[in-house]
């Protein structure tokens, strides 16, 4: 594939490192030093200009690119670059890195014409969530005011309750009000027929209610003792995103923040978390609040050295599992040598997710087999449709799955004897080649 990477910072560099072997890369940055460094190590083209410029993109030949990755440290630059790229070349896929949760929400509501958006904070939070053994849903789309969610899960090795993984889907005990609409295995999409099963290493796409999404996350948690009580040191953007994600998983969260005003903001923003205005270096505080009894502690302060010191102190108070966020590339190794259980680099995590998307069959197929893509449709059922008032179990089996029905503003998750009513809205997961047929049938 021909890929444009806009921004050659830590994220951009990690992406280049991961993708340079198989793909043809063009990297944009305003800093000649960064570009030089990359072009000496890898075989890539470089453009020393602003990637968020229409002229630059056109001259660099964006029309021939399959994928544009905008991953500078500035959200607006990234969004603008992606919008220009889409304008110049509608068939090019776009990925935007953002730090702003609001952009992410707007994108999920399909108000931003971007194919994939990655938030550094959210990726970090997901990484933390995975590390402590609670795989969180990746929400990619919402419908009907959030009543219907399209969520994706990574199925890790050794994950999952008995009775699900490896069993044929029709025999597996799956959460109510949800439907597996696709299984992504390596470079392929496997249609979820009743005989198919979920395997470790798969990524699965599920349509379901928010409650069902939570049930799935429980289901895919590795066996063993669950982490129920986490202390987060540092209430910056990363700490906040981690706290919010863990709270949605029903984990008890305590946040320790050193700045008074920030602590007050957090107390307002984080519903259900306990917020302390204190520092992680205060042994008395740790003792008094019994921090040592927490199941895990996350260190998300801005300074690597502080994180290391606080984590070491927390360990000495008895915290059994410590996770630190590191910002310098070298820190991760040192931290793990120093006894920190896991060190997470937000930029690496972001780059990994972007690379994953670049390798995702749903992206690759643009370049390869045009007819094999999948789409999620949101259609209103015409009264004269043949499918109206036919029980689901009698509908013909095709490659399309009706994941949810929205009737009078309420979401319904269909089972065998459900029927479509005229003017229902349906959320359908279907192959792109079948889109015209699906539209015609409904």
């Amino acid at each position: 594939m021909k890929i444009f990477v806009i921004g050659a910072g830590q994220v951009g560099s990690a992406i280049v490192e991961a993708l340079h072997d198989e793909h043809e890369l063009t990297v944009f940055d305003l800093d000649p030093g960064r570009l030089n460094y990359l072009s000496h190590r890898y075989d890539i083209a470089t453009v020393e200009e602003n990637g968020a410029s229409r002229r630059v993109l056109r001259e660099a030949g964006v029309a021939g690119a399959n994928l544009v990755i905008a991953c500078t440290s500035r959200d607006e630059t990234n969004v603008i670059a992606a919008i220009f790229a889409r304008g110049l070349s509608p068939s090019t896929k776009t990925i935007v890195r953002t730090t702003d949760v609001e952009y992410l929400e707007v994108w999920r509501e399909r108000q931003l014409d971007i194919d994939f958006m990655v938030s550094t904070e959210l990726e970090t939070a997901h990484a933390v969530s995975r590390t402590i053994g609670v795989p969180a849903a990746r929400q990619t789309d919402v419908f009907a005011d959030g009543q219907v969610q399209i969520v994706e899960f990574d199925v890790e090795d050794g994950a999952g309750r008995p009775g699900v993984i490896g069993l044929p889907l029709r025999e597996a005990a799956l959460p109510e009000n949800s439907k597996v609409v696709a299984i992504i295995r390596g470079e392929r999409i496997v249609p979820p027929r009743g005989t198919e099963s979920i395997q470790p290493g798969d990524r699965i796409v599920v349509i379901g209610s928010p409650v069902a999404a939570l049930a799935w996350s429980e289901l895919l948690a590795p066996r063993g003792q669950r982490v129920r009580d986490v202390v987060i040191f540092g209430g910056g953007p990363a700490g906040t995103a981690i706290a919010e994600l863990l709270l949605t998983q029903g984990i008890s969260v305590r946040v320790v923040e050193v700045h008074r005003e920030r602590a007050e903001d957090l107390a307002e923003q984080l519903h259900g978390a306990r917020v302390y205005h204190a520092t992680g270096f205060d042994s008395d505080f740790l003792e008094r609040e019994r921090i040592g009894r927490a199941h895990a502690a996350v260190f998300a302060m801005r300074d690597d050295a502080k994180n290391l010191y606080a984590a070491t102190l927390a360990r000495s108070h008895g915290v059994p599992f410590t996770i630190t966020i590191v910002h310098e590339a070298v820190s991760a190794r040192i931290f793990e040598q120093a006894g920190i259980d896991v060190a997470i680099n937000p930029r690496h995590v972001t780059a990994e997710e972007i690379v994953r998307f670049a390798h995702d069959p749903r992206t690759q197929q643009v370049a390869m087999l045009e007819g094999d893509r999948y789409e999620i449709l949101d259609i209103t059922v015409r009264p004269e449709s043949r499918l109206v008032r036919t029980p689901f179990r009698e509908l013909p089996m095709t490659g399309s799955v009706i994941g949810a029905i929205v009737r009078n503003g309420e979401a319904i998750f269909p089972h065998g004897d459900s029927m479509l009513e005229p003017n229902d809205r349906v959320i359908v997961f279907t192959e792109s080649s079948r889109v015209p047929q699906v539209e015609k049938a409904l």
Partner: protein
Amino acid sequence: MLGVDVLAALNLVGALIKYLSAAFLFPTAVALGYGESPWPFVIAGVATAAAGFGLEAVTRGKERVGVREGFLVVVLLWLLAAASGALPYLLSGEDQLSNPVDAYFESMSGFTTTGASVLTDFEALNHSLAMWRQFSCWVGGMGIIVLALAVLPRLRVGGRQMFETEAPGPEVERLTVTIRDAARRFLVLYFGITAAETVVLTLLGWTGIDDRMGPYEALAHSFATVATAGFSTQARSFEDFGAATQWTVAVFMVIAGTNFALMYRAILFRRFRLFARDEEYRLYVVLLGLGSAVLLVELWTSDILAGEAAVRHAVFNAVSTMTTTGFASADFNQWTTLTWVTLVALMFFGASAGSTSGSVKVVRHLLVGKILRRELDQAVHPEIVAAVRLNRERVDEAAVRAVTVFILLYIGFFAVGAFALVLDAARVDLAATAFELIAASASTLGNVGPAFGFAGPMGSYEPFPDVSMLIFTALMFVGRIELIPVVVLFTRSYWRV
């Protein structure tokens, strides 16, 4: 240098009070309709208009009326309105109201929607004067709705900025509306509820379900219900009306004690789930239920009442007391000590903020509970930072302080009032127990009305000496305008630049 533009404030008071003269048209019409003398109302109306225009003409402010002048305007307006409302009582030549202190008390009781009365012989009043009493409640209630929902929040009184302006749930955009818009919306509701109750009560009379209920009684009692006032044209309040009437009025009292802003939104967006989601409304209903339940169990187990009558009287009187209306369906003087204590406790709750009800109001109790819980949490965990939330929204710390201060002042006024009443009663050797006097202080400060003993639901405040009557008048007034505007006027910082 004076920091308050007194002349500008007076000018505005004049401009507003002249509109009050229009209120006298209604009793004038009633008088003409029943062939009674309209002159007390005509003279009072002309006097009020003259005072208003006069005040407006002789005063001219240097500056625009701002927040500071607002306190003075609110205080003066209420005092003058009560004075103007007392004129018909004095001019009517009715013996029971010929003492100016008594007439002012009665008028203040009406305009503050309290419902405490000096009358003993209700038959002696003619139709128009009796209707004026009821109508003054309704006009007062209208003033309170505007004051509570549109004016006081701007003056940041008692934390009102937080829980009464347009700061609803997350689904409504946070618009601040002009006083005029807010007032218009809520008055539409106010008129609507009054009309609905009048129609229902009239129908009960018409269909013969309650033959004591004529259109006159229906309108008179609807005025007093919607304003949560509690004046009645009957000496024995609701005792002689039928069961259906009592149930109907109980329902309308609950409605009148609901936050008008909440009601307006629920009706406007047709989302009645908003009620279930509102923390204050939920607690309001729970407290009403709890109060009724205690009364019911006590009435039943003490063999005072049984069956439907026990349920009805327990609910009616609990609702009436907690919404600070002050109607009575039975003489609870005859009940037990536990019921009295329960009723006094209900007097301290009041109904929802943003209604015509008086007293502390449920939302402040709710917030104080939350503030207390946070303080206790911080005692154990000194580093904890927590937000006080109402309906999931953070309550800002200024409002938290204001609510605490309000409750403190409320208790202060109640205690001082009670002490003063006990002293005055001892001075003239009045036949009232300390509990009765304490209850009377709570009842007038909370704008409820009836207390116990001779000032009980079927009784009258008539035996009290003039000094006590002035104390009651002051308590009703201060309680009605939420204490702080009055207290502020007694601080040096208010008057200084």
